[in-house]
């Protein structure tokens, strides 16, 4: 199974510039994930100030707002996509992250067989 580990920094965007030491520590962790054959993909994200938000209301009408997003409580700072044998294993790997003042959310990625059969059939018709 695949798990997405979302990193939510719990610091203000102005403080998003990590030290060289913190980056090195994180690189070692990423390398450990890679060497364990777990890592599928990872990325760090620019702060939301440089992003944009496209929202849809009940009728599907779109509104585009440039960042930063005043209403957002938390913003994603980056993610890892890993292959793990169980949620427990993914959580154990998340615990090994050399994080400071942040939160990592571990979420399982949907696979086709997780969907009911009619949804699978609809997806197969594309």
């Amino acid at each position, binding site marked *: 199974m695949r798990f997405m580990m979302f990193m939510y920094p719990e610091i203000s965007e102005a403080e998003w510039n990590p030290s060289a030491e913190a980056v090195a520590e994180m690189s070692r962790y990423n390398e450990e994930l890679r*060497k364990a054959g777990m890592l599928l993909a990872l990325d760090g994200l620019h702060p939301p100030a440089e992003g944009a938000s496209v929202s849809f209301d009940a009728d599907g009408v779109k509104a585009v707002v440039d960042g930063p997003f005043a209403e957002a409580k938390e913003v994603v700072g980056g993610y890892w996509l890993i292959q793990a044998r169980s949620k427990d*294993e993914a959580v*154990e790997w998340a615990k090994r992250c050399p994080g400071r003042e942040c939160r990592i959310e571990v979420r399982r990625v949907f696979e086709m067989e997780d969907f009911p059969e009619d949804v699978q059939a609809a997806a197969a018709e594309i």
Partner: protein
Amino acid sequence: MAGADARAAVETVWRIESARLIAALARLVRDVGLAEDLAQDALLAALESWPRTGVPDNPGAWLMATAKNRAIDLARRSQTYERKREEVAHELGVLMAMDGVDLAAAADDEIGDDLLALMFTCCHPSLSTEARVALTLRLLGGLTTAEIARAFFVGEPTVAQRLTRAKRTLREARADFEVPAGPALRARLPDVLEIVYLVFNEGYAASSGERWVRDELCQEALRLGRILAELAPAEPEAHGLIALLEIQASRLPARLGPDGEPVLLLDQRRTLWDPLLISRGLAALKRAEELPAPLGPYGLQAAIAACHARAPETEDTDWVRIAALYAALGALSPSPIVELNRAVAVGMAFGPETGLALLERIASDPTLRDYHLLPSVRADLLARLGRSAEAVAEFHRAASLTENESERRLLLRRATEATDR
């Protein structure tokens, strides 16, 4: 911490740490069987104490320290009691001399070397293929005896016996626990790669078995293949194998139809292929191609798989390149199966007539005599030439040779289609 939670925590940590633990211990005691026993002792100790104390901050280091203490205890006891294994005293003497060394703090390089040495030992030439597979899954994959038994449709006692015998064989062969150096590494690497490939194929074979066990085997092979490519980065075949596995795995969601019947590569819905695994496979192939040594058999097979992966639709396939790659593969490791595949590619690239001519050259090969794909490929080429009657006969012949029921149905359907032309 509740008992069940602690147990789950121990099992999770075990899955992550067991291979490294066994590898590091094996380096010290020079016996994978003994190393596994020591690691298991540490696991039991964790099951006893973690429910009371909670999971330690560095569970891997805890397990390693505990295993080391057990080893020292064992060495002391073995001096007073009857010896079970003649080498134990010497080996554990080494271990005791290492007492002051913090094993858990071993450098990354060392851990990597230990793991690689464990891989080579599990695939040692003194062992049968079955034993290599079982030992690899057990010691490197952390699979239980029961899980291995389920994956290979054999009884648990059979697997247990296979493992015990394999560990004894290694002991008797005095298998060196080390990474072969220089040319020896390149000579023995194919043994390791073969086992990883075999595990993958066991999982990939769509014909039978519990679904999740099969997936588990594919994932385990991918994990081992990725680790291997990290540990032996200068070896093109390590990258070649993982490239091949990633690309083949990308097709997993597309290779079965709605009723569980196999769907041939060229008929698969390519939108179902996993783009992440394809890009990982292509990246691994690039790493193999950038090394000074030429592509080996796995690299070439990966390059062929990449041709399919790169084509947005079946008709975009670069058959000329595939035909050339099969020719290179046939030159490197000649086999009638490779020639058969080359005939298919040549038939697609240069027309059915050319493909058929190539096929005739291998038609009398004894290894292909009862192989259903030979008449099936010939039937396909004949049908494209409009030689319907011959095509129908060949499709029927192919159908009579296959043991797979859904494949048989597919071949008979194609026979009917050829008749209607």
